[in-house]
């Protein structure tokens, strides 16, 4: 029961946030960037401004809704990059073995010894702020676990009968990796990917908060919190709502990821009578 709850509840949250983000223009009646009006600054939540307004009189509700586009883009795209890198390195390392495997394993260990947020920070330092840099920075720094899982399952799948059979049939290495090995590890990779998306969204918020990610005036949940810190005493709503948005999105992804893992790997304990 709990298993299905995680999967359904998490999935529902993700779906709702995705819908709100994609169809944001339908739900708001203030432009998130242009409708700045200092006359409206720091207004508490009201019928017109559901989540209140920020220091420049912009509608927090519409900024939160539009902000989901950036968070979701960062989450999805950067995690896709991570998964591709991890799969590419992991499968090839497990499949070919030898020197290449040693190199990849070494690289993975080095990657794991640098806290990923700090690594991303370093890359942002070089590339400068912006959405593109964020996607690259977060996409290059969180693939180690995917790589490890992919490597170990490629290693064990390699010796299985049907992969050997495919080899004797004269299938090429690339074809075997894509058609025989990859499909068999899709489950765990999806789980790591879902949880990784949550990490990426949290990292984006942190980097943007530090002023290294998305720059104002574009609405990102993280950068909204940067502004909000200064006026937390007068306009707490400007801090509360973007934070709740981050929390709900990541919670949805985490629940969905947990549910997916339980679904794929039911931890059934059989008791002896």
């Amino acid at each position, binding site marked *: 029961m709990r298993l299905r709850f995680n999967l359904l509840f998490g999935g529902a949250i993700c779906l709702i946030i995705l819908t709100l983000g994609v169809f944001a223009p339908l739900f708001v009646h203030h432009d998130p960037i242009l409708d700045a009006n200092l006359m409206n600054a720091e207004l508490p939540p009201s019928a017109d401004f559901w989540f209140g307004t920020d220091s420049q009189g912009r509608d927090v509700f519409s900024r939160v809704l539009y902000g989901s586009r950036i968070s979701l883009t960062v989450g999805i795209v950067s995690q896709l990059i991570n998964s591709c890198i991890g799969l590419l390195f992991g499968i090839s390392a497990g499949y070919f073995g030898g020197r290449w495997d040693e190199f990849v394993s*070494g690289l993975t*260990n*080095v990657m*794991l*010894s*640098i*806290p*990923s*947020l*700090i*690594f991303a*920070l*370093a*890359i*942002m*330092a*070089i590339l400068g702020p912006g959405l593109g840099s964020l996607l690259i920075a977060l996409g290059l720094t969180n693939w180690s676990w995917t790589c490890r899982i992919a490597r170990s399952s490629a290693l064990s799948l390699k010796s299985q009968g049907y992969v050997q059979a495919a080899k004797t049939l004269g299938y090429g290495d690339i074809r075997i990796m894509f058609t025989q090995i990859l499909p068999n590890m899709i489950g765990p990779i999806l789980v790591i990917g879902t949880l990784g998306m*949550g990490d990426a969204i*949290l990292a984006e*918020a*942190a980097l943007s*908060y*530090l*002023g*290294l990610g998305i720059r104002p005036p574009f609405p990102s949940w*993280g950068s909204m*919190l940067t502004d*909000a*810190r200064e006026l*937390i*005493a007068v306009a*707490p709503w400007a*801090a*509360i709502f*973007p*934070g709740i948005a*981050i*929390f709900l999105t*990541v*919670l949805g*992804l*985490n*629940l969905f990821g*947990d549910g997916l893992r339980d679904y794929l790997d039911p931890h059934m*304990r059989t008791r002896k009578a």
Partner: protein
Amino acid sequence: MIPTILAVSLLIFVIFSVIPGSFTSSLIADGKGRNDPKVVEQMNKEFGLDKPVYQRFGSYIINLAQLDLGQSFRTRQPVTHMLLERAWPTMKLAIAAMVIAILIGVPLGFVAALKPGSLLDTTTMIAAVSGLSLPQFWLGLLAMYVFALTLGWLPSFGYGDGGIRNLILPAVTLSVAPLALLARTTRAAVLDVMSADFIRTARSKGMNAYRLVTWHLMRNALVLIITTVGLQFGSLMGQAVVIEKLFSWPGLGSLLVDSVSMRDIPVVQGAILMIVLWFLIINTVVDVLYAVIDPRISHG
């Protein structure tokens, strides 16, 4: 550990060497992005940036071996000094956060595991997954609003005189994620051990619950818990950067963030290297502890 350190320093060096344009030009550029070629040349010379990459890496490593991380572009102080100055506050913050996480997370996970499916268990696990989904700096911001600005119980930011009052808010904020993860791991580890055959044996010996738990259950669960603690230090150090910035805590993290925005590359390199070194030291300690607890490791 040494090869990893070398690899990490190479990686960091490479990343900062492939940047388009030179630091110096962006460092001394005026408001319109122009700069005086003569000044750039002079600065490049001063920091050895006119030499070819391999030579620079060579001298970087040689200096590193002598614990010399170069000098800051900005303050011209030796980087090592700047880092050492900032190391203690960060260490204090990280250790305090981890101690809070262990002291609360482990017992919580343990109690939850005793009655799986109970109200307490369900509540704890929902709280744990929520704790892992929260942006910690946001939580810190709210805590600052409530406990410092509204109630006035604690100082809202800064290091103060280095006492405990200034430490509480940042440390508690930073402890949330490791606490949540430890509660989850402990619960899973305890449940795992509880169903083990040797626990049934121990019960058949007629021992009381206290002895069963301390001698047979906890020791075995500890192996898993300690691994989590070690791994968590990495992301803890990452999160510390944001929390330090939020609470204006004068540690490595805020130094790193400031140096990144100033493009003070030697300091950035040094700070990252220092954080990695720490993480590696802690993981080595964890490995040693692991071998102390689990004879299967040390005896092969």
